[in-house]
């Protein structure tokens, strides 16, 4: 896929899209003293068009954070606001997919094995009713953009891991959610495929102008993709670092380590992760 990314000046970041206020999630009963906090006092603002990468040591609650934002988990404390309107919180019953404002790409591709690639990509559109010709056209364009147009009639088990990820990404983008959550989507792939998919994602991001909240445990990936990196501490997970990435776009994920400020970002994040791990 050809890289067609905007210049740094063209990358515009708008007003707050997603706000997490004092968000926390715990398991167990507070009354019996067995309450265990997984995430606590999370304050985070994600702006429209921003690419935020979330890092943290294992068990810091990165995936839990995305599940709470996707409303598949109810927070035990705090509030979630979307464009300034509360959409979730400790006092609101979770209602995932209620307004189709969120796209979620998980670690597994979660494609329906009994549907072809095309039917999987069309799935969100058929859920909403009969897809319009424009929506069908967009699905075709997205499949082409992710390089799967010739694989539309194949089943997921006939695709490679990277192709399944691409199909999953196309399925998420086809209904145009303003924000896309991505939970270590490329974690299980080999280095070459991962680099290609990172480049593809940056390309899609530049054309689709989505807001992305991207969880990863790979510092290189976080720096290569993100406008900003948020680091969560151990248990309970708290935001311990927010760092703006000043590396100009377009970026080449494979050569990101050659960027002049890469080393300083890498050291700061690594130091923070180590500190959090020992805390």
């Amino acid at each position: 896929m050809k890289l067609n990314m905007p210049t740094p000046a063209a990358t515009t970041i708008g007003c707050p899209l997603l706000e997490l206020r004092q968000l926390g999630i715990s398991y167990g009963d507070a009354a019996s003293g067995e309450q265990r906090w997984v995430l606590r006092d999370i304050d985070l603002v994600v702006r429209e068009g921003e690419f935020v990468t979330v890092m943290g040591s294992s068990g810091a609650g990165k995936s839990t954070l995305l599940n709470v934002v996707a409303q598949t988990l109810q927070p035990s404390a705090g509030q979630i606001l979307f464009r300034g309107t509360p959409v979730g919180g400790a006092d609101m019953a979770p209602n995932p997919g209620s307004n189709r404002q969120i796209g979620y790409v998980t670690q597994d591709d979660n494609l329906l094995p009994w549907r072809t690639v095309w039917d999987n990509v069309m799935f969100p559109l058929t859920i909403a009713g009969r897809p319009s010709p424009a929506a069908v056209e967009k699905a075709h364009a997205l499949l082409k953009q992710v390089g799967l147009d010739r694989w539309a009639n194949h089943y997921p088990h006939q695709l490679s891991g990277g192709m399944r990820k691409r199909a999953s990404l196309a399925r998420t983008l086809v209904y145009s959610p303003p924000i896309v959550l991505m939970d270590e989507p490329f974690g299980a792939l080999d280095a070459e495929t991962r680099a290609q998919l990172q480049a593809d994602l940056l390309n899609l991001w530049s054309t689709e102008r989505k807001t992305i909240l991207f969880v990863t445990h790979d510092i290189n990936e976080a720096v290569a993709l993100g406008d900003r990196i948020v680091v969560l501490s151990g248990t309970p997970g708290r935001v311990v670092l927010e760092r703006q990435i000043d590396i100009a776009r377009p970026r080449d994920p494979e050569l990101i380590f050659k960027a002049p400020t890469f080393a300083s970002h890498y050291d700061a994040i690594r130091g923070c992760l180590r500190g959090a791990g020992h805390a």
Partner: protein
Amino acid sequence: MSFQQKSRLAGLVGLVGFAIVWELASRLVGDYWVPGIAQVFARLFKDLVEGRLLVDVAATTQLLLAGTAIGTACGCALACLLRLSQRVDSLMQPLITALMSVPKLGLVPLLVLWFGTGWAPKVMLVALTVLFIVFSLTYSGLATVDPRLTMTARVLGASPLQLTRSIVIPSVLPFVFTGLQVALPWAVSAALVAEYLAAKAGVGHGIEQARQMSDSVGVYCGIVLATVLVLVCNAALAAVRRLTVKSPF
């Protein structure tokens, strides 16, 4: 020679081998114990020409279809009910386990006492035979529905009905079909037993009539018909499975 051709050839060789053993057994032990193949197929042809064969097969097929449909519907519904409510599951599981262990064929006299000698007891016996097998498989199948797929569908905005249609049914359907494939020979046996006791037509009725007249050729004809019925139903089931279960595995 392709793998499919080899399998077909192996099947044919198996059939020929079986026919040879049958014929040898007939010559060895005599017509009364094992009638010859030619005798059995001549009788089948005669029954076909006289129209009796089709009447019997139609009666048994009707019974089989009605009982299987009712048993499958009830088995699936019961499995869904138990999976939907933990409380109902805990309440009903011991009862269902107890009912499953009751030999269904032993219920025939009771069903005749309750419902007479009409269609109802025969359909009920077939339905009961199918019900518990389909229930077991569907109940297990419902546990295998991937929560990651349901989560994804929920995030995409799927309603409970859409979730059922697009995730639950395609996940469980292979289990239901496996249940039906397992239940089918048992259902045919149940239909035959029901027809032995109370029927005016049917393959089982034909076998019972032949037995009363010590007509071993007639009994063998019934057995062959029942076997063919199972094979045809199995092939039809496999075809329906191919059409409805879209999983390419």
